[in-house]
């Protein structure tokens, strides 16, 4: 049950994407996500999908792995699609059920939204599949460094993320142990209605919480013993360097972002009528 957690999973492979600077990968992913939502018309959204597709293929991670990440969000897609289809009332009416009219505008918005969510999930899993968790936190720390200006403690934030990632497997293991221990004492965790199941979680969560506090205090001692004294005068063993491909991809991403914003504004009328005017 707990082994299905795919969040933050790293898929080792030797690809261009794996070798990219993690900072660039984060910026690319953020760029892609922004693009998904900036693209208001079908052609630009298609362009974004195409771009994402090319990047996904560049990772050498099997496509199956990406499709797997979409499975858990199918309900989210369905719900947003229905809501969009029902509430958006622009365009011509298609059909009517009871007092609800579904219009072309509604269906179109629903399709756009679904595509956007899929692209969003796939591009963020592209980031986690190709970047080790430590590289990721490292990159976030460095990207957020300018925020020190507004007195944000970037180092502590990154340290918390590192520790959280480090303890995920430990705590999962511990949860399984506590579950077995409570089951051995006759606890019933897997049957009954929703309410009784939630109630059955209490004897698992409380020991887990208490032991986490004990772990936290021991870890703090151990860190202090290893001369940890916050982020001041701290150096890092691994340094990040921008290489040719990093810069090239950043420029490419900036160009795409600009192109799609422009196409939204100036080409929308032309392209829209050209490509989709006849169909819809």
């Amino acid at each position, binding site marked *: 049950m707990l082994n299905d957690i795919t969040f933050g999973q790293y898929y080792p492979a030797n690809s261009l994407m794996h070798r990219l600077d993690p900072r660039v990968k984060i910026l690319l992913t953020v760029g892609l996500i922004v693009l998904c939502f900036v693209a208001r018309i079908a052609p630009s959204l298609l362009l974004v999908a195409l771009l994402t597709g090319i990047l996904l293929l560049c990772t050498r991670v099997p496509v199956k792995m990406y499709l797997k990440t979409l499975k858990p969000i199918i309900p989210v897609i369905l719900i947003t699609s229905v809501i969009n289809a029902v509430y958006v009332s622009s365009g011509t009416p298609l059909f009517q059920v009871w007092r609800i009219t579904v219009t072309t505008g509604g269906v179109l918005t629903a399709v756009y939204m679904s595509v956007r969510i899929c692209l969003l999930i796939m591009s963020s899993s592209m980031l986690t599949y190709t970047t*080790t*968790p*430590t590289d990721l936190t490292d990159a976030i720390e460095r990207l957020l460094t300018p925020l020190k200006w507004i007195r944000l403690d970037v180092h502590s934030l990154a340290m918390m993320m*590192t*520790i959280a*990632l*480090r303890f995920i*497997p*430990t705590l999962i293991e511990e949860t399984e142990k506590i579950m077995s221990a409570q089951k051995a004492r006759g606890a019933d965790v897997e049957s009954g209605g929703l309410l009784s199941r939630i109630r059955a979680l209490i004897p698992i969560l409380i020991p887990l919480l208490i032991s986490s506090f004990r*772990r936290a205090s*021991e*870890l703090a*001692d*151990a*860190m*202090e*013993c*290893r*001369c*940890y*004294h916050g982020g001041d*005068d*701290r*150096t*890092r*063993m*691994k*340094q990040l360097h921008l290489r040719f491909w990093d810069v090239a991809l950043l420029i490419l991403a900036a160009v795409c972002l600009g192109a799609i914003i422009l196409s939204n504004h100036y080409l929308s009328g032309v392209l829209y009528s050209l490509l989709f005017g006849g169909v819809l």
Partner: protein
Amino acid sequence: MIHIEDIYFSYSVEEDSEPIPLFEGLSLTIEQGSFTTILGHNGSGKSTLSRMLNGMLLPEQGRVLVQGMDTADEQNQLNIRKTVGLVFQNPDNQIVSSIVEEDVAFGPENLGLAPDKIRRRVDQALAAVDMTEYATHSTARLSGGQKQRIAIAGMLAMHPKCLVLDEPTAMLDPKGRREVLDTVRRLNKEQGMTVVLITHYMEEAATADRCIVMEQGKILLDGTPHQVFSHRKELEQTGLTMPAACQLAFLLEDRGITLPALPLTEQECITALENLLP
């Protein structure tokens, strides 16, 4: 190396309750390059003592000097922690990073060393605990003994003069225990590392230079393992389990067969018994 001078320390079980005295005028000196084991049961004060050695805890009276530096002085704090590396019981709760080499780098990174220097120290430390091939592995998938060796490597990368290990084998299986003990012994022999091993397994003390038995915050016995282990009565009172070789020798003694010298390890016992036979 480390001088403990007449320290007093007490602790409270609950807030506002009467503090219970633990150390009342304890003094102890750890020699440079020595291998010392501190034996004792739970509550004997051995873990509290270990935290006194690098200034994690400060005595109420008296002082602890590490290479002449007083642990009570804030200014010495980083230097003392760099000199005396403390390894704890639970390996899971002292590993900071999910990647082996990055965890080992944590200490030197805190010291603010240059990246290439950290890299060198990490490689050396991993080689010293024989974990080089695991450098880029995930810390979560290691065995208990391997995790504890990584914790030791994390300390070694700070180039300490002394390693204090607080029951490092208590949560390990026999194989993991052997891995950790062999590593510590090798560090002592080959690199001259001062080692203080705190444990409640008497057989772990058998190969040390010096063996200290603590009870209720006092030093009960202090000497070479042979000297300490021959105090049969006192040891039986503390409830520590004797190594099997000693137990056998004592049982033989009860039946009127006295071995020339008290055997501490299996091998010594075998040799002694062979010599007895005609």
